[in-house]
Every structure is written in C-alpha cells, then in structure tokens.
C-alpha cells in the first residue's frame, strides 16, 4: 500500500504483470475513488467551461457525451487534465486528478465568480473502473437485462445514468471499459459483486503500465504548469476554432504555435534489454538532450517503453543513458498498444 495524495492505495493486489494482462485480455477493476468529481451547474455553465478549458465543450451536443481537456493558466501551462461530461443544458460533470484537487477547486471557484454557475465538489461519490475486452459482458452479472442492453448501446466516450449510478464508457487503459461513479456507501457492495462475478482487482502499478502503453499522459510527470499542451503531445485537445472563443491560456498558446514549440513529447521504445525510467537522459546527437517523463516496462510488448520530452527537431533515433551506458532507442508515436494489439 502507498500513500497517493492522502489516499491509501495498493500498487498491486498480487502480480502487477498478471493484473496488466488480465485487463488487456479479459477484465479487471480499479478503485479510482481518489479521483475528484466536480459538478458545474447554472445558466452560464457552457459559457464558463468554454472559457475555463482549452478544449471546447460546445462540441458536446448529445447529453452524456464526454470530452478530454486541459485546464490552462494564463501562460498556457497545464494546471490539470480532466474529462468533462455534458449531462444536459446547464449541467456538466468534471473528473479531475486527486493530486491537484485543492488547487483545481481554488482555480475553478475563482474563475467562476464572473459567471452564473455553481461549482460543487462531490466527495461523497466513489468511482470504480471496470476495464478490458470482457468488461461489458461481465457487468451483466451486476445489473438487470434492461440496463445491460443500454450499456451495450452506449458509445465510447459517452455516459448515462443508471438509477443513481453515472456510468461512462471511458477509461485509462486503452481497452473497452466503464467508469462507474456512485455513492461511496454503494461502492463496497458493487466491488464485492464484481469480484464474485470474476472481475479481479487491479492496482496502481498496472494502471500506470496500461495507460503508458495506451499513450495516455499522466499529470504531474508528463506535463505540469511549466509546459503547454503543445509541448506535451496534447495539441489535439486544443480547440482553436472558433477563433473568437476566448479561453484561459489562448493568447500564450497562439504565440507559441506561431513561434513553434521548442520541445515535443514523444514515445520511446528500447529494443535492447533493460528498463526505461523517469528522469533518464535522452541524447540526440547534433540536436540536443531530452528527458524521460514516464518510463516503464511494457508487459504487452515485453520491452521497455517511455514518454520523453525532447527537442522539437528530434528525428527517429536517440540514446538513453542508463547507469552510465548509452542504449539506442527508437522515437515512436504513441500509443504503443491499443485494444490488446501492439502498434509500434
């Protein structure tokens, strides 16, 4: 067990690699109740979120649709990354990181002052993620047939209410799966029913290797307030159009876009034996140095993989310094693995 932003959480329940493979090949569940749920409601909710977030919630037309976005400061630095759900007019739900909870709430509340909205943290809610190719089928054991039919029809990156449960077809693994937000008092019961149905628990360790293989950034290691989305592989999450939409950080980002960012976030693949780790130095002869932001061993590929922040001009070859030795790595485009299949 480790202390994770004040939450006592398991790195693994047994074997981290077995937990990883289980999610890729079958199904596993994660207790992600540490995540912070924030509801934004009021007549200005849409206008507020279009100002607060770098992605544009006006893209969300259908109730239940989800959007991944960065929340930036005025310099374009990333305060946090989050998922926002459009529930219905004037009603949105955001899920933000646990480690950034306090500063996020303070920032959001301060920015909301100029708008007719309420910002409410929902600490009474827990969250269980059920992930893997068999997630939908296994969930049928804990819901009735009518509910299961609705789940089958639920599209990726959409959510629906199932009684008091808010169920989203989202996750942090690169597999099909669901994130269920429910009252904490119901969470233990659901967890036990899922366990009885054969859904094995998965710890933080496998959560990290799964998201890294899936090419998903981790806030605090792959990006923070000192870098922008353009330097973090997240340019695709910035909604530049419509040009008249003013969002926090926009002018700084536009300036950086014109001048070209000096760094980029890239995937790395080590063909030799060894393990890439956070903060190892990446050397690109004739170009400059970079640094690994997230490195680990990919159980699916059987090789070490990483994200690294490198000079924008870097090509496809580099070396990583491991205990004084230089090992060749390939610069690759993430994801490394999607839906159980290698992509590099």
């Amino acid at each position, binding site marked *: 067990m480790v202390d994770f932003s004040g939450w006592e959480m398991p790195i693994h329940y047994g074997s*981290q*690699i077995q937990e990883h493979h289980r999610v890729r090949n079958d199904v596993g569940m994660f207790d992600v109740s540490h995540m912070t749920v924030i509801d934004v409601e009021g007549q200005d909710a849409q206008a507020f979120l279009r100002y607060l977030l770098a992605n544009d919630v006006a893209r969300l037309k259908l109730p239940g649709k989800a959007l991944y976005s960065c929340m930036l400061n005025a310099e374009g630095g990333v305060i946090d990354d989050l998922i926002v759900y459009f529930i219905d007019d004037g009603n949105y739900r955001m899920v933000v990181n646990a480690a950034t909870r306090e500063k996020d709430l303070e920032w959001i509340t301060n920015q909301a002052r100029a708008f007719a909205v309420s910002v409410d943290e929902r600490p009474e809610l827990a969250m269980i993620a059920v992930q893997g190719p068999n997630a939908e089928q296994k969930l049928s054991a804990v819901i009735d047939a009518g509910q299961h039919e609705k789940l089958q029809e639920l599209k990726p990156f959409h959510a629906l209410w199932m009684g008091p449960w808010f169920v989203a077809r989202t996750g942090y693994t690169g597999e099909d799966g669901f994130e269920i937000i429910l009252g904490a008092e119901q969470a233990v019961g659901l967890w036990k029913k899922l366990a009885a149905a054969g859904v094995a628990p998965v710890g933080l360790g496998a959560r990290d290797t799964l998201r890294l293989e899936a090419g998903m950034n981790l806030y605090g290691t792959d990006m923070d307030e000192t870098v922008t989305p353009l330097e973090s592989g997240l340019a695709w999450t910035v909604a530049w159009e419509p040009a008249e939409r003013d969002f926090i950080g926009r002018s700084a980002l536009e300036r950086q876009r014109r001048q070209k960012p000096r760094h980029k976030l890239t995937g790395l693949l080590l063909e030799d034996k060894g*393990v890439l780790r956070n903060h190892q130095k990446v050397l690109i002869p004739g170009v400059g140095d970079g640094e690994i932001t997230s490195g680990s061993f990919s*159980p699916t590929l059987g090789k070490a993989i990483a994200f690294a922040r490198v000079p924008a001009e870097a090509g496809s070859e580099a070396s990583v310094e491991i205990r004084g030795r230089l090992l060749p790595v390939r610069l690759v485009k993430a994801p490394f693995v999607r839906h159980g299949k290698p992509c590099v």
Partner: protein
Amino acid sequence: MSNIPTELKYTKTDEWVLLGEDGVATVGITDFAQQQLGDMVYVELPEAGATIDAESECGVVESVKTASDLYMPVAGEITAANALLADQPEKINADPYGDGWIYKFRPADAGDLDTLLDAAAYQSKLDADDH
C-alpha cells in the same frame, strides 16, 4: 509472511548466501525482497572473473516498479551468473532460493561469511524495519 530458510546466511541488503562444500557461495535475493520489488523484468548480472569488494555494487535487479542494486556480501571473485535470468527474470519471483539464484562467487576469505546475519537475525532486522 516471507520465507527465511534457516540454512542460509543473509545480508542487511536482503541478499541470501549459501556456501557450498566446494568453497563457492551462491547468492540471490530473499523472498521478502522479491515480494517488495514485485514482478522482475530485467537483471544485470556480474561477469565471471570479476573481483569485487565487500558491500560493493555487483549487479541490478529491475522490477516493473523499480530498480534495486545488488551488493557483494563479502569480498570475492565471481565464478558464475545465472544465465537463465536473462530471458526469465521472473524466476526470482517464482523461486528466489532455487532457480532464481543470481550469481556464484569464491570468497576471498570464507571466514568473512561469519559476519553475515543468520535467519533469526535477518528476521529481527525485517521486524525492526517494519516498526
């Protein structure tokens, strides 16, 4: 609870040592250490012929979670390393005192091994670290 065989000697850095009748000692990491590190994915082995001082780094074991240095229990010369671990580092998890052995060495002075912990002392060290 971890397994601590009574016939072995132990280091404070969680290696076990078994002195054979041929005067060659076998070294691995303890059951406690493999549990703490989790799934092993890579081992950097010492090379046969290398002469290494007591308590000096002589290799690295890496799990998915972290890298951990291996230390020479007492001064000596490496005579062999477990080649099986290059492709199956998980043997350290499955059988830390058997197939998961890491290297063998000839102590410069076999008497030095008396300075290592016995099973009871190693258990006490683990208990003390736990508090």
